[in-house]
C-alpha cells in the first residue's frame, strides 16, 4: 500500500514545494483522499486550480499523471480499452489456411491486440499513478456507470481476458464545473472538495509565487482590484488564473504601479464580457477612452 501523504501538514508542505499553495481544508482533503484511497471530486468555478491540484499531487509524490479528458460522446472505446481490430484482421489474413480457427480465435484476443485507454492504463500501472478525470460533468450519464466499477473497486472487466485489478491503487482526481449534477452513485464513492476563490492573502502569495519578478506592491494592488471585481455582479467573475494572467501582462508591460489608467487599459485580461467591462469601469470609476 502506498502512503501518499503522512499527514495534512505533510500534504500542505509537499504541495507547496510543488508550487501549489493550499488552504487547510484542501490539504486535509488531499491527505484523506490518499489515506482512505478514495477518489477526490473537486468542484468549483473555472480557473481556480482544480486540474492544477491533480498535477501538483503528481509532482509532489513523484507519481505519473494519467489524464482522461472528458467530453460529450466519450465512450468505452476511448476511456477504457479497445480491440485493435485492424491488427486482428491482418492476423487472420496472415494465418489463412495453415492454422485452426480455434487457435486464431484465442490468439487475436490477447494483450498484443489490446489498445489500453487512460482508465485501464492507470489501473495496470505498477508505479504510483495519479489518475485525473477532467471535466467529468461533460460526459454522458452512461460513462458515469462505467466509472463506477473503476472508482469503487479499481478493476475493469474485459470479457475476453477476465477482470483486471489494480496492483496499486491510483490517486484519482475528478474535476467538475458543476454544469450538470453528477449521479448520487458517483458522488457517494468520492470525497468532495469545493474550491472557491481564495482569500486576499493567499491570492497574493499565489500570484507572487506564479509570476516571478513582480513587485509586491503591484501584487497587493492587483489583488485588491480583483477582490472588488468579484463583489460586483458580473457574468464571469475573475478567478485565480485571470489574476495570474494579469500579473504576467503587467510584468510584460513593465508596469511598476497599477493606477487607474493601467487598469482601464488591461481590463480585457481579467474580464471577458463586454458588459462586464463596462460595468467594472463604471463601478471602479475608471476613465475609459
Amino acid at each position, binding site marked *: 500500500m502506498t502512503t501518499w501523504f503522512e499527514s495534512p501538514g505533510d500534504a500542505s508542505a509537499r504541495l507547496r514545494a510543488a508550487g501549489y499553495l493550499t488552504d*487547510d481544508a484542501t490539504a486535509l482533503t488531499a491527505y*484523506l483522499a490518499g489515506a482512505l484511497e478514495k477518489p477526490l471530486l473537486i468542484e468549483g468555478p473555472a480557473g481556480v486550480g482544480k486540474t492544477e491540484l491533480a498535477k501538483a499531487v503528481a509532482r509532489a509524490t513523484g507519481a505519473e499523471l494519467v489524464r482522461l479528458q472528458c467530453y460529450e460522446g466519450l465512450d468505452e472505446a476511448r476511456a477504457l480499452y479497445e480491440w485493435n481490430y*485492424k491488427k486482428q484482421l491482418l492476423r487472420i489474413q496472415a494465418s489463412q489456411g495453415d492454422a485452426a480457427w480455434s487457435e486464431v480465435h484465442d490468439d487475436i484476443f490477447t494483450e498484443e491486440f489490446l489498445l489500453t485507454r487512460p482508465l485501464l492504463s492507470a489501473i495496470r500501472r505498477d508505479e504510483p499513478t495519479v489518475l485525473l478525470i477532467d471535466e467529468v460533468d461533460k460526459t454522458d450519464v452512461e460513462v458515469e456507470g462505467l466509472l463506477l466499477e473503476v472508482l469503487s473497486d479499481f478493476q475493469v472487466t474485459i470479457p475476453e481476458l477476465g477482470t483486471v485489478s489494480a496492483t496499486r491503487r491510483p490517486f484519482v482526481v475528478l474535476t467538475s464545473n458543476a454544469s450538470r449534477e453528477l449521479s448520487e452513485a458517483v458522488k457517494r464513492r468520492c470525497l*468532495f472538495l469545493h474550491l472557491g476563490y481564495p482569500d486576499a492573502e493567499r491570492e497574493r502569495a499565489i500570484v507572487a509565487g506564479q509570476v516571478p519578478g513582480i513587485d509586491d506592491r503591484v501584487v497587493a494592488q492587483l489583488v485588491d482590484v480583483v477582490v472588488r471585481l468579484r463583489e460586483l*455582479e458580473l457574468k464571469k467573475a475573475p478567478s485565480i488564473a485571470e489574476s495570474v494572467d494579469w500579473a504576467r501582462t503587467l510584468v510584460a508591460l513593465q508596469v511598476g504601479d497599477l493606477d487607474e489608467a493601467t487598469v482601464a487599459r488591461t481590463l480585457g485580461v481579467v474580464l471577458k464580457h463586454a458588459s462586464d467591462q463596462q460595468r467594472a469601469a463604471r463601478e471602479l470609476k475608471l476613465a475609459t477612452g
Partner: protein
Amino acid sequence: MSLLDTHIGFVEALRSAGLPVSLAEGLDAISALERVRWHDRETVRAAYAATLVKRQPQRVTFDAVFDIWFPRLVGSGVAGDGLEPVAGPQDTGAALERFREALAEALASGDAQALQDLAVEAVARFGAMPGRGPGLSSWSAYTSLQRVAPSELVEGLVRGLLAGGMDPEQAERVAGRRVGEFTRLVEGDARRRIAEEKGAEHVVGATVRPTIDRLDFTAARRSDLEEMRREIYPLARRLAARLTKEQHARRRGPLDVRRTVRASIATGGVPLETHHRPKRPHRTDLVVLCDVSGSVASFAQFTLLLVFALREAFGNVRAFTFVDDVVEVSDTFRPGADVVEVMESLAASASQAALWGRTNYGRALTRFAEEHGDAIGPRSSLLVLGDGRSNYSDLALPVLADLAGRARHAWWLNPEHRRHWGTGDSAADRYGEVVPMVECRNLAQLGEFVHEVVRPHPTR
C-alpha cells in the same frame, strides 16, 4: 453522550435538514476521522465536509448544523467567566456603553477574534431573557442586537476608515461588511446557547434556513435576493448544458449514407456503425406576461432573467409586465446586457404598468388582448406569472380562455404555496381551471419548469 452517539445524532440532524447522507458516507466520515487529529475543530469540520457534503449549496446548512452539534465553546467559555446577564431594561446603562465602545474599537480594527469574543459577550450579557416559561428559549439574538444596536456604529466606523485613507465608497462597503459579520456571529452564538439549553436535536429544524435554491421567493430577504440573482446565470448555464445533451440524444434523423459508407472503410467495408443526419431542433416562441406588483415583483424578475438567459433555446421571446396596465419590456433584454441595468429598467417599467396602482388582472388581460393580442399565434406559448390576487375585481376569464385557446401551450406560474391558492382575494383556483397552474416557489422549481418547457418533446 458518547462520541458515536454524537456522530449518529449529527448525521440524523443533517438528514432532517435535507442533506441526503447515506450510511456508506457516514462510515466514510468515521474512517476519515480516525486518520486526523481532533485538536482542531476546523479539521473535524473539514473531514466531515469532505465525506458528507457533496453539493456546494448545502455547505451553508452543513456549517450551521455543525456549529450546533460541535459548539465552539460551552456556556460563556473560559474567557467569559463572570459574564453575568445584565438584568432589566438597561438600554442606557454604563455596561452597555462600555461594551459599545469596545465593539466600535474591534470593528474599526477588523480583528476577527475580538469580534467573536464580543459576540459571545453580547449574547451572554444582553441577550438573556430570564424568567420565560419552560420550552421557550431564554437567549435571543434579536434582543441583544436591539440593545447593542451595531448598525448605529456604522457611521463612526466609516469616519474612522475615511481618516485611515480609504475612499468613501470602499469605506462604506467595508463598514457594512464588518457589521454584517458581527450580526452573523451574534446570531450563531445565540443558536449555540439555545442548543446547549434545549439539546441540539431540537434546534436544528427550527433555526436552519433552507439552501438558497429551495428558499421561497416570497420569504427571501434582500441579501437573499442578491444571492439568488447571482444564481440565475449558473442555473441557466446548467439548463442549457442539459438541453444540448438531450437534444443530441434525440438527434438521430434519417440515415446519412455518405458518412456511413465512409466510416465502413475502416472496418473492411462492413458498416458496423450507422451515421445519421441531425434533426432540426424545434424552437418555441414564448410570450411572457408577468405581474410586477410589489408582492410578486422579485419572482417575475427571476423568471424573466432566466427565460432571457436561455434565449437561444427559444425562437422568439416577448415579455410584457402589468399591474393594471400592460407594457412591453422585451427590448430591455438585449443579448449581453448587464444584469443590474436590466433590473433597474424593469423596476422603471413597473411604474408605467400601473395606472391606478392596484393589481387588476381582469383589466390587464383585457388590455393585453386588445393591444398585443397578435403576439399570440399557433406557434407561440403563453406563460403568465403571478399570484392571481386581483383585489376582488373582474377576472376576465373568457379573455384568458381565448388567449390560451389561440396559443400552442399555456401555463400559469404561481409563486404561492398551493395551499394558499383561492384564499382571500386569490383567484388562483378560478384561473387554474382555464390555464394549467404550476406552483413555482423557489429557484429549484423554476429551473425544473423552464426545463420542462424547452425540453425537446418526442411527440410534437
